[in-house]
């Protein structure tokens, strides 16, 4: 009885992906509460940069005078930081999710170019995000609801960047050749061997227990923040895997195939989250605001180009790795390398002086008041939503025109 019930629940929850709207609304609510409880954001690339710093320290590189590491507070190791546990929690959470849904499979790219472009795209995206002080999270999904103007610049930059990224990604050198064979073949019929993946379920429970133990350990050891970060991370990881929340896809597919479902869901998630963060900020929690500089806009463009070339953004590669797609190790390594490169160039190459210095950290609440901040953020989201609908309709018309052309030819 119980097993049958469990199977029914499992079938209902994990046999198909979750509706991205529901997932992103939930992610928005959780992100607002994470901010309310910890005062920090759901963010990942700041931590990737610190990983780069920690890695350099392992090789006896003295990073103590790097201005960027002072800015993002490179202290201790990943296990000592809330952001560190947030990232590790995300990886564990999405691994749990991939296993329990039986989505895990080792996948190696058939074409070697994927490794190369994954790494190069990862470097460009990693460099861009840190120039902008945040990726598709802290300068986008969780950045806009902080009423920080830099997220507006980053979102605009990312939209432009992904457009050019798509122009590149369809070129033969990026695209490569598919394995297409012509010739008659019988279709596959439904296979009865659906039960053979049960090992993944056992592995999923092991991962779940690890997550619970980590959280319980830190909470009982008086480091509740670290435990909470791991738990929230696990929830975020699970959500992005179950909803296949790929920000790259959300933006790229608008340009490439005119699909806007994910883009609209991302906007809905930001809208809900904005209400939540507004309440917490109103109650006295300091918002996280960064420089509204040309760096945020240019960083967005670089990020947009990079994620399309790489095939995944900073959150996308995380859940894809836990599904067994090994090429995304190259993307992750590229992200860390690119972010570390920016951290070095920040003061050593004068990146800060050229792109960021002198630009203010614009907090819309303090500069426009509550009414102005809420209205302008709401209007910005509505405009983005309308732009997506416009793009979808434009593409639908394009398909319609294309499909009528050949029939005209035949009748003529």
């Amino acid at each position, binding site marked *: 009885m119980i097993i049958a019930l469990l199977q029914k629940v499992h079938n209902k929850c994990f046999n198909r*992906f979750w509706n991205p709207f529901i997932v992103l609304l939930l992610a928005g609510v959780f992100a607002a509460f994470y901010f309310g409880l910890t005062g920090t954001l759901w963010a990942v690339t700041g931590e990737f940069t610190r990983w780069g710093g920690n890695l350099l320290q392992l090789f006896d590189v003295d990073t103590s005078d790097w201005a960027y590491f002072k800015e993002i507070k490179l202290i201790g190791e990943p296990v000592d930081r809330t952001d560190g546990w947030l990232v590790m929690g995300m990886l564990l959470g999405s691994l749990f999710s991939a296993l329990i849904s039986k989505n895990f499979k080792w996948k190696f790219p*058939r074409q070697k170019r994927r490794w190369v472009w994954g790494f190069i795209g990862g470097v460009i995206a990693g460099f861009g995000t840190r120039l902008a002080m945040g990726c598709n999270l802290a300068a986008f999904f969780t950045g806009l609801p902080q009423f920080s103007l830099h997220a507006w610049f980053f979102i605009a930059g990312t939209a432009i960047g992904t457009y050019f990224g798509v122009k590149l990604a369809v070129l033969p050198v990026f*695209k490569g050749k*598919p394995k297409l064979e012509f010739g008659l*073949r019988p279709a596959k019929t439904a296979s009865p061997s*659906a039960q053979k993946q049960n090992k993944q379920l056992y592995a999923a429970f092991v991962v779940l227990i690890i997550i619970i133990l980590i959280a319980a350990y830190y909470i009982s050891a008086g480091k509740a923040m670290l435990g909470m970060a791991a738990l929230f991370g696990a929830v975020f990881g699970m959500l992005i895997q179950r909803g296949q929340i790929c920000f790259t*896809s959300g933006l790229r597919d608008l340009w490439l195939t005119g699909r806007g479902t994910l883009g609209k869901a991302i906007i809905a998630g930001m809208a809900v989250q904005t209400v939540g963060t507004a309440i917490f900020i109103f109650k006295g929690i300091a918002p996280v605001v960064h420089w509204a500089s040309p760096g945020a806009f240019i960083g967005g463009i670089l990020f947009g180009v990079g994620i399309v070339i790489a*095939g995944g953004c900073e959150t996308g590669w995380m859940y894809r790795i836990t599904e067994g797609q090994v090429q995304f190790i190259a993307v992750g390594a590229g992200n860390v390398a690119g972010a570390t490169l920016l951290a070095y160039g920040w003061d050593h190459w004068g990146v800060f002086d050229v792109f960021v210095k002198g630009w203010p950290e614009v907090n819309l609440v303090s500069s426009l008041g509550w009414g102005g901040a809420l209205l302008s953020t709401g209007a910005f989201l509505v405009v983005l939503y309308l732009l997506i609908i416009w793009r979808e309709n434009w593409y639908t018309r394009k398909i319609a025109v294309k*499909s009528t052309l050949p029939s005209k030819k035949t009748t003529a």
Partner: protein
Amino acid sequence: MAENFVVDATLDVRGESCPYPELYTLEAIEKLEDGKILEVIADCPQSFINVPASCKRHGHHVLSTVKDGTTLYYYIQVCK
């Protein structure tokens, strides 16, 4: 559900990740004539959403989807 039909071409995108499963599928469809059936073999979870959605959007019929473990087989009839 699974009828016995014969496919005219097979596109194997196992190991590829998005956007390429979707792009390759649309391009393969371009090379086929009206009424022909394309088999797409995919194992990237994102493509489980993108490939059928894009085929339907372009007016082609997704005849059936067969799941074998973590691999999906799509049967798409080209409509031109």
